[in-house]
């Protein structure tokens, strides 16, 4: 029987399927439906040094087979997360990846410092690309020098592996990845949402500006995963419109070592367990001994 387990940054995950940050609350919310130990690893909602209130509504909008969100990074702050929510993952022995962000370099650093190594913490995932929040108009993911600086600084204050989560910067993606890589980044998550907007033609207003996620992202994210996974010798985690087993396989074959499922959970709250199950069945069908054997097979 094939094994779904993958090794990421020296830790063994029982499968390569994670939730995408911000799409599975603090973890406990999904427990009435399925246990979070189903996940290869739980990715936290984006955390910051201090709590954030987030944006006014509307915060979510349907656009074709896509979702535009403008949550604005509402979160209880890194300390309260570890006080109130981390115990559940300890109890269930579920590895976590801590997604975090800051509005200044200092905030990133202080937030990373706050997170002490733990055998359940697989990595810190730096959200370098939040299109929803515009403090001073700066976005760290925009500029290779900024990326280099911030990754280097974060690497300097933590022993936990650091993942850079990038936005679909299209043509500059490789340049940005290069900057993060040179600063010592341990892996990449691709992609975050794409900036988007809706016009209400009746009211002549813009009901929402935010980040686009869901199936519409998939072909763009696949391209990014293939490009980055063949260019850098560190693991890539794929995200963007993974709705089912087939999408998951596409990302693995494009070079992703692990996967994050976001918007799909809103359409079908069992999407994640179904994908985990589907991957297991696929291994059986193709008589593969390990899921790792298919990683990058389409994009060599």
């Amino acid at each position, binding site marked *: 029987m094939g094994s779904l387990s993958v090794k990421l940054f020296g830790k063994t995950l029982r499968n390569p399927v994670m939730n995408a940050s911000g799409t599975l609350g603090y973890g406990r919310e999904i427990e009435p*439906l399925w246990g979070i130990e189903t996940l290869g690893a739980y990715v936290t909602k984006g955390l910051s040094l201090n709590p954030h209130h987030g944006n006014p*509504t*509307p915060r*979510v909008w349907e656009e074709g087979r896509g*979702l535009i969100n403008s949550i604005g990074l*509402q979160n209880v702050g890194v300390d309260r997360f570890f006080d109130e929510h981390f115990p559940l993952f300890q109890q269930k022995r579920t590895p976590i990846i801590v997604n975090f962000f800051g509005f200044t370099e200092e905030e990133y650093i202080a937030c990373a410092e706050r997170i002490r190594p733990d055998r359940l913490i697989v990595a810190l995932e730096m959200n370098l690309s939040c299109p929803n929040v515009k403090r001073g108009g700066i976005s760290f993911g925009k500029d290779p020098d900024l990326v280099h600086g911030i990754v280097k600084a974060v690497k300097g204050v933590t022993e936990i592996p650091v993942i850079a989560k990038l936005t679909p910067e299209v043509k500059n993606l490789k340049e940005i990845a290069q900057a993060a890589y040179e600063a010592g980044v341990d892996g990449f998550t691709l992609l975050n949402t794409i900036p988007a907007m809706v016009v209400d033609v009746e009211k002549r207003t813009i009901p929402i500006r935010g980040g686009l996620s869901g199936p519409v992202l998939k072909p763009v994210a696949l391209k990014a995963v293939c490009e980055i996974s063949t260019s850098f010798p560190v693991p890539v985690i794929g995200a963007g419109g993974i709705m089912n087993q087939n999408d998951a396989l596409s990302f693995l074959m494009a070079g992703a070592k692990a996967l994050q499922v976001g*918007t799909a959970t*809103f359409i079908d709250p*069992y999407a994640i367990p179904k994908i985990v199950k589907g991957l297991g069945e696929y291994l059986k069908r193709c008589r593969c001994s390990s899921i790792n054997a298919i990683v990058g097979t389409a994009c060599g």
Partner: protein
Amino acid sequence: MDDIEGKITKNDEVAPGYYLLRIKLSRPMDPFVPGQFVMVRIPGKDVFLRRPFSIYDYRQPVLTLMYKVVGKGTEILSKSRKNEKVFVLCPLGKGFNLRRRKHYVVLGGGIGIAGVHALIRRLGARSSVFFGCAAKEELALIKDLGDLPVAASTLDGSYGFRGTVVELLSERLATFRKEEMEVLACGPVVMLKALRRILEKDRIPCQVLLEERMACGLGLCFGCVTKTVDEAEPYKRVCKEGPVFDLWEVCL
């Protein structure tokens, strides 16, 4: 809480633009509290996100919803036929808290009646029911409550009190014993704001069922928040901490 497959057994227009939808669930739904809701996956592929609807009635195995056509999702739902399959994530959220009072005044404004229908049924004689709508055609929305006394208002005066349901309540408020009563309401934001104004002086206890655009309905996305007076954490999730909130804790 579960995602239950169901089959549409009825989807009838009960008043112009208003539908009653009966879904036969393939498994029993967990016990629900009036005010709780469900997330329905609209048949077909044209609607991406699920849509939230209050539990209008549930008698195993039939779940009943009442909805108004307001946009793409409800439009397509209204065209779904008998025997079509739907997935229903249910029951969700926090319903009305009914352990506090002896006498409840229940208000439903327009399609807001769908949010308090199960509540009215559960309260029976412990409640006084007020329903407001635009015109007498919409009285069909309370047909199912035929056996209970309902004070109704229409904006055009075509039936009952002419004016809003809050104006009607305001006229009758003096006849209730304020210390013993609590108001439970569901309706458009303008209605809830007006209600707030007439209850403000005595700060009469009041729970309101709020609506917001939702993506997950489960508390996962933080997309459906409403602003509250809690300064540390002003935005609460309608799907998780709500949809029923204490009127005096929200900023409408």
